[in-house]
């Protein structure tokens, strides 16, 4: 069993998602439970894989589909880095799938089934993108992720159709650019397998075609991960997406493309050639731009969700900056920030989902008295906010630490300045919320779903909220273990020499 764990991560949610409608037809909630169970199993498989990889000292596990050997066959390659991301994504997916239950409580079977089908497929797409060792297979999973993402965003209500359509248009351009880039690479090397590609790309790195391919890939992934200035679709998409799934969309959907980018940059193309070095510089500049513009835009927002969406642009900028530093600490910072940001952004959107569920409005200046009504949400919100600002002992501080170390080591002192400015801007807009909650008079908001018990929210929503709040603390506490025990085992070759 254990040797098949890598494929189960993707296969189980895929099967469940495809059967979901059928089961929902039989009994309204059965499909939903099936998907949740499959995601739980997927999480278990991901943990198994992570254990195996770490036990093997970081040696990657290659899983070939149907016994077809690469480079002809498709393979999943699981190294420490992507196994930990798989655990992260399936973990958040599980929490959010559980969390979505109250939102679809009053819907008919078609909507429940449809919601969970899309949700399962989104998980499949994200996990597949991260696990695969084949560049074309990555494209397939990218499209699965995108299409199910469009669907989930469109489910959000009136304005969400437009947001989803816009994302569809822009996202398709991104995906097409990726496909173009893959086409160029295939034309140069004749292979689609990542390991093979890494071995064969060497002679071509000075050709203009290579530069073209790199450009296409960066723009393609840049669109998908909402890297400044390619983030135009993202604020609307996050704001209007289905409130039950927003946490998953906002937390994870940008991470898989970001990881794919890291994989291309550090594991396939390597960073020690002129094209990649200038590409890194460009990524760095975009990252800096995102950090500043995203933070300033977030300051100007009045809708909590839009504010977080722009803050995501800024946080993706952190990751891009870490990637661009091209040294070990920058790389560690970027990866750790991917993990941290996924958790804290999901946490914040879970909180928002709770507010939407209870009151139907998420206006920034109508949060007064939330600390009394939604205590668990408030605690999670405060922890996540501190983490976003980057204050110890929460998780966000530690990724900032590595990013700063990377900036100093690579002598990009400018990056340090930007990190400081961005943290301070983060502090402004998050403390504004904390002030609102604790100081302002109680906002008179009509309850859409009236007070439910002591928690203020139904149990399936309260538990993920509490879990994610604790996770922010634990990630901070165990960040050194994650780095020493996992990430450092999977460092790209460039840093090992």
């Amino acid at each position, binding site marked *: 069993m254990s040797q098949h764990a890598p494929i189960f991560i993707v296969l189980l949610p895929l099967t469940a998602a495809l059967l979901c409608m059928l089961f929902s037809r039989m009994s309204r909630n059965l499909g939903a439970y099936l998907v949740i169970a499959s995601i739980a199993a997927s999480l278990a498989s991901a943990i198994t894989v992570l254990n195996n990889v770490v036990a093997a000292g970081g040696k990657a596990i290659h899983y070939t589909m149907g016994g077809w050997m690469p480079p002809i066959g498709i393979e999943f390659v699981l190294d420490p880095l992507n196994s930990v991301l798989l655990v992260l994504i399936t973990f958040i997916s599980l929490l959010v799938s559980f969390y979505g239950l109250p939102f679809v409580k009053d819907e008919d079977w078609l909507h429940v089934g449809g919601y969970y089908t899309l949700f399962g497929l989104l998980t499949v797409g994200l996990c597949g993108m991260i696990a695969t060792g084949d560049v074309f297979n990555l494209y397939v999973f990218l499209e699965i992720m995108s299409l199910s993402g469009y669907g989930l965003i469109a489910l959000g209500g009136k304005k969400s159709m437009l947001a989803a359509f816009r994302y569809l248009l822009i996202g398709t351009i991104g995906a097409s650019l990726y496909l173009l880039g893959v086409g160029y690479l295939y034309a140069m090397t004749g292979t689609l397998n990542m390991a093979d590609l890494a071995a064969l790309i060497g002679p071509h790195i000075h050709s203009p075609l290579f530069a073209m391919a790199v450009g296409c890939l960066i723009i393609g992934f840049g669109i998908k991960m909402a890297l400044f200035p390619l983030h135009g679709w993202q604020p609307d998409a996050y704001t209007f997406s289905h409130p039950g799934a927003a946490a998953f969309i906002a937390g994870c959907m940008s991470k898989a493309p970001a990881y794919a980018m890291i994989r291309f940059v550090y594991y396939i193309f390597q960073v020690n050639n002129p094209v990649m070095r200038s590409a890194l510089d460009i990524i760095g500049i975009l990252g800096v731009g995102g950090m500043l513009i995203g933070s300033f835009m977030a300051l100007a927002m009045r809708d909590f969700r839009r504010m977080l969406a722009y803050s995501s642009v800024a946080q993706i900028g952190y990751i891009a900056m870490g990637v661009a530093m091209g040294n070990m600490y920058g790389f560690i910072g970027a990866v750790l920030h991917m993990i941290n940001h996924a958790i804290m952004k999901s946490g914040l959107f879970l909180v928002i989902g709770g507010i939407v569920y209870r009151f139907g409005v998420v206006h920034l200046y109508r949060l007064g008295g939330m600390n009394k009504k939604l205590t668990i949400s408030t605690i999670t919100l405060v922890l996540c906010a501190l983490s976003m600002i980057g204050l*110890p002992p929460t998780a966000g501080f530690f990724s900032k630490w590595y990013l700063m*170390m990377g900036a100093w080591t690579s002598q990009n002192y400018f990056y340090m300045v930007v990190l400081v400015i961005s*943290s*301070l801007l983060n502090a402004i807009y998050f403390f504004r919320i904390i002030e609102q909650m604790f100081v302002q008079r109680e906002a008179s908001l009509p309850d859409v779903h009236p007070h439910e018990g002591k928690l203020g929210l139904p149990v399936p929503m309260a538990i993920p909220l509490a879990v994610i709040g604790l996770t922010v603390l634990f990630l901070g506490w165990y960040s050194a273990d994650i780095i020493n025990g996992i990430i450092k085992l999977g460092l790209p070759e460039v840093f090992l020499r």
Partner: protein
Amino acid sequence: MTIVDARPFLAVGVTLVAAILISFSRRWPNVREAWSAIASVIKFGIILSMLPGVLAGDVYTYTLCQLTDTVGFTLRTDPAGMIFAVLASMLWVPMNFYSIGYMRCNQEREQTGYFAAFALCMSAVMGIAMAENLLTFFVFYELLTLASYPLVLHKRNQDALSASRKYLIYTLISGQLFLVGIVAVYCIAGTMSFTPGGFLNSGMAPRWVLQAIFVLMILAGSVKAAVMPLHGWLPAAMIAPTPVSALLHAVAVVKTGVFSVLRIIGFVFGPQLLAEINIIDFVSWAAAGTMLVSSLIALRQDHLKRRLAFSTIGQLSYIVLGASLLSPLAIKGAYLHLVAHAVMKITLFMCAGLIIARTHRNNISELYGIGKKLPVTMACFTIASLGIAGVPFIVGFVSKWNLAFGALQAGKPIYVLVWVASAILAAAYLLPVCQMAYFRSDPEEKFRKYGAHSNAMLIPICITTIMAVLLGIVPDIFPHFYELSNMAARTICAGWTAGGWQ
């Protein structure tokens, strides 16, 4: 001898646990405050149990986990840290009872949050006192900012809101600068464990880089130490309840600031390197200027707490100036004044709080004749005021004596004059309060109402006053602050005789 011992973490953890217990005891005020009191006593006990070992030269150290891939989350006791740890935990015990009395007398809202945040602050202070390396220090430094923020915001009105914003702006910006400094120090030195005499040396980086790092780090410390012109938050933060002003804004938070200045000067850069890179004079000038200017401002303040706040700003700069003179006696005087000022200023603030609670008067010009109504309080206030002014046989004198000799030892006698001037000014702004209380009678008989008397508030005041006098007469009385300061100064200046002393 180095002993692996978890007691430093227990001292931090006991208040952390207390904070959690307090949050869950919202409905039972007595239980809630009992947690706080029990924690304060336990904490003081834990710290005291390590004192004999530290005096004998032992080092208790413990690494709880790794903070980053290479840096541990480590606490360690050394004489310098022990001074601060003993001081803060010792003063927290009476403060706790005073808090209970004050909060109940004034019927303040949100008392649960108040006690929880207070306990959390004390955890952070213990961590700061005993941190083994810069990163651990920074973690607690930021925790202190976060934990004291709700206390400044306690009143939840517009004034408190703007004060708390100001507080955050100052402390968060300085925290981020400090972080940059820490990263830089770690990258050039490869270590960040505090070492007496400093672990940086001039071979590690160009001179201007060292200077820049020093400026960054000292700026961060100076904000919390309220060195002018970075003092703006402290008078604003006086909006907080008086026990907060007393313990945090006269003892814990601002002392964290001066303590970090002392750590940076004595344990990161070291006197030798600082003398080489030739930048420390700016700190001395800023501190000297602060002492005089803040005293002059204090003269003009009518609001009692604000006057004490500006007095605090001036007194803190004594410590910063002492540290920046880099001579053994001055550094010893700095550590002594850290203790002396804490004991005296907590007394003054507690008196102010009692006056506010009982008479509801905030301004000095309204304190007609309260000496007759509150004889004990005003007696304590007078003693502490004299101590701040540097009268012999009160604790303030001992430290100032050492500081003055330190200035002579460093060959900068001009600073002796600054100290004398500042002491005279201190007398000039504090003694009129006593004069008002004792010798003026209320012309309009306007102020007749007096609030309820509370022994919970009065007894702590007497205790700290007795401490101030005892420490003034017998400086090395238990818990041996004098010896600890001596040890700290000796280790910092060990092996450096460039100033011509042994």
